[in-house]
């Protein structure tokens, strides 16, 4: 998404990214970024919360009007009701390490099989 924004901006179209993966967007480097510190999935506000969604979109519109230089990040004031997601998402620890290794092995086998089938067709 960051790459697409950069391309549009290079070609004369002002852009704002709305998202929750702060490091990925900021490391890439984008013109304008509205950051909401939520679990990934609802960068424009909580589901069914019209007022919050309006506030976040309004922040993006204001940033379009007021940004005077690139790499401006604005963080919206909203917080998720708990912090569990910060540690739970894509967690790796002793409880799931073996299962993850098995899952990776299974995926590689499936991919190899898919590749063989494709080569067979070609």
């Amino acid at each position, binding site marked *: 998404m960051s790459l697409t924004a950069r391309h549009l901006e290079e070609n004369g179209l002002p852009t704002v990214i*709305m*998202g929750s993966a702060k490091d990925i967007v900021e490391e890439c480097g984008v013109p304008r970024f509205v950051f909401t510190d939520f679990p990934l999935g609802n960068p424009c506000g909580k589901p069914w*919360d019209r007022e919050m969604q309006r506030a976040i979109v309004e922040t993006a519109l204001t940033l379009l009007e007021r940004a005077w230089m690139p790499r401006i990040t604005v963080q919206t004031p909203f917080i998720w009701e708990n912090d569990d997601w910060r540690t739970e998402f894509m967690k790796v620890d002793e409880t799931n390490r073996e299962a*993850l290794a098995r899952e990776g092995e299974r995926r590689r086998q499936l991919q190899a099989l898919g590749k063989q089938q494709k080569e067979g067709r070609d």
Partner: protein
Amino acid sequence: MKIGADPGRLSHRKRRRQSHKEVTIMFQRQAYRSFVSYMDRSREYYAAQGYTQPYTWPRFREVPFTPLSKALSACRVGLVTTAGRKEPETSDQVLPRELYAMEAYPPPKRMYTDHLFWDKKATHTEDVDSFLPLNRLAEFAREGRIGSVSPRFYGVPTDYSQNRTMKQDAPKILEWCREDGVDAVLLTAL
């Protein structure tokens, strides 16, 4: 006690206790950053799955910048999403990556997001406006905050290949935006 309750109705001691509680909620000390680093997290996760070569994310020194050329109330605003427009017909069907432009109104009731990288335990994507705010933008257009919303929105697939995004997808999105007379673009990353 609910924050924001009328403090005038509380005894002096309760009020002091409440203000102390507010302070503890508004301010915390910690030794680590609270923001999740998705670069760190995904690298560790795929390493645990046995992928030895980590994904390398793009990083640029230079960042382009184009100021808005006219008042926002005269601008047509476009939306770009990473969500897909089609759902697979069976659970084991893998849909090909699709770049698309789609009629924005009436807004879709559902978008396909199962294939994307987001927190399926913590939240859901059943309200399309939580990641593709077509209804919210229509409200801002009606109120005159923006000139109009583009009649189409644009879907760009997330792609392992940065080259494909830069050489194929982004130029196509630009072309569609120009066809639709778009003046500014919101891109929402799921």
